């Protein structure tokens, strides 16, 4: 799951980035409002953590601007502004969650997962498809009740496909989800991960759409 972190405080930004990475997120960190606006518009993120007191462009204006342009990615506002009018304004401007500093990293991660889940129209923490049960919080995958050992990237790839079950995801989309900035991506990395997944879960689980990308058939379509 790829998350944009917008925080101008160097120490807090560093801590949040490291912490979210430990919890299985791909994190890109920007430190000002203009960069945040630009990155959010790119549509490459599953969710964003947005501080409000930002240099160059205030977080409130970032919210207003990206929501005005139809960016749908869930945005979690993480701020020290705790007054009720501030919270109301933040939520009304399109924030999906409003969290006051300081925040527990596990809670922040859970909230981000919940936002992404809700955005993809999914009710529970566990995704089910093709006889697989994926628990995004515990980062585990069960196949017919048995635990399947997956690497971090394999889990993220499966998670992305299961979140968008029934839809075809291009190789670029999958790369964006799996890798943050500055990480080397081999040209066939996605194909390699898909290959490994198929070996562990069965070939029929992930379908290839030639020239377009990969897809996981939705539960309903199979049964």
């Amino acid at each position: 799951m790829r998350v944009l972190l917008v925080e101008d405080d160097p120490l807090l930004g560093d801590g949040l980035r490291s912490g979210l990475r430990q919890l299985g997120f791909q994190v890109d960190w920007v430190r000002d409002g203009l960069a945040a606006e630009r990155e959010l518009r790119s549509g490459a993120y599953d969710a964003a953590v947005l501080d409000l007191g930002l240099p160059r462009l205030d977080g409130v204006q970032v919210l207003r601007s990206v929501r005005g342009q139809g960016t749908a990615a869930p945005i979690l506002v993480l701020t020290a502004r705790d007054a009720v009018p501030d919270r109301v304004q933040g939520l009304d401007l399109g924030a999906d969650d409003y969290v006051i500093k300081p925040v527990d990293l596990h809670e922040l991660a859970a909230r981000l997962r919940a936002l992404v889940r809700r955005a993809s129209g999914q009710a529970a923490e566990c995704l089910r498809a093709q006889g697989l049960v994926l628990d995004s919080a515990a980062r585990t995958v069960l196949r017919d009740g048995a635990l399947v050992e997956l690497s971090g990237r394999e889990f993220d790839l499966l998670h992305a496909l299961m979140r968008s079950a029934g839809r075809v995801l291009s190789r670029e989309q999958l790369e964006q989800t799996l890798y943050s900035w500055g990480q080397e991506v081999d040209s066939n990395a996605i194909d390699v991960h898909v290959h490994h997944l198929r070996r562990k879960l069965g070939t029929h689980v992930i379908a290839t759409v030639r020239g377009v990308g990969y897809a996981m058939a939705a539960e309903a379509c199979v049964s």
Partner: protein
Amino acid sequence: MRSLQARLLAGVLGSMLLLWLAAAAATWFDARHELDELLDSHLAQSAALLIARQLDADDDDVPRDTPLLHRYAPKVAFQIWHEGRLALRSEQAPAQPMAPQRSGFATLAIDGRVWRVFAARGTDSDVQVYVGEQIESRADILRAVMRSVLAPLLLALPLLAAALWWAVRRGLLPLRRVAIELERRSPQDLRPLAAGQAPAELAPLLAALNALFERIGALVQSERRFTADAAHELRTPIAAIRAQAQVALGAGQESERRHALHATIEGCDRATRLIEQLLLLARLDARANTDGPPAEHDLAALTRKVAAELAPQALARGQDIEVHAADPCHVAGEPVLVAAMLRNLIDNALRYAPDAGRVAIRIEPTAQGVNWGIEDSGPGLDAQQQARLGERFFRVLGSDQPGSGLGWSIVRRIAERCGARVQVGRSVALGGLQVDLQWRPAGGSAPMSR
């Protein structure tokens, strides 16, 4: 006299009494003058009559006493001398001549009483006449006149005092009403007082009170905002500490754990610095009203001391810090506070100057006093940013410097307290920020203007 009512009463009644007494004095002098004229002319006329009578009378060597004719008669007396002998005298008159002079008026003592005596001589025969009257009788008349003038006043004064008391009390009613309204107010109620039916004399007081309310309101507002801002500012370092500590807990690798723990300690240092600055500001606020006369000290020595404290930080980044001060420069201000102000300014300059940059401090006596200037080779500030310096928690955006945003508030407050003027501009020599503190000459009274 503290009571307005008592003061008004005393003023009005006192001046009325004085006027009345002056009028009475004038009446007294006037009446005495007229009375003297009238009675003197009577004496003269009586003397003339006596001379005329003596000319007609038979020559008689035996002096005669006239009988007491009236009960007032003892107050008047006369003598008629003929050719050096006493020819006729009233019962009260002495046997000697009543006055030393031959003619005209005299006031003199006879047998222990004061008399007014008129002397006259007949024109062609040797007749000498004295007519006298006790002065006391004139005083009696005068006293009667004064009694009639002053008696009404004695009666009127208490009545007047009562009427005045009532009128003044009524006139001061609006004042009392304002007092009651103020008394009933809660401390939070800072709405302006309605000047509606208040008399014109109260308008300046009400306007001043309302202006005061407005200032207090602004102060309360700024304090509230400050508390909110302070809480806000403390949350970020604490959030950082928490996040870094959690990262350290969850770290798989030793290097990651060490990095996170170092960051945690850095976060604690930042929070500590912020809290120290907040406490300093709070103390400045609390002490604002309890000023003693500012002490004097050597600014050059203090600057060297603070610069020495901060030098390691500069050396670590290869920065060059210099202090130019020739002689001791004595300025006013508590040394502890001035040191805090200088520390903030030097620390700021070092923070914003780049690695291997320069910071220069100059202390020079000027015509107006002492100038303490600091300049750095950092990016400086544009006019808009310069104007916002000193707002609490204002930080220059886009800078990575983890300042508290309170340093400038502290500098401005302390400068205000020791009567130094702060000027911000661009350094000509180094290109960065230039800050000047201008002190009046030591020993002069430091203005505490706000």
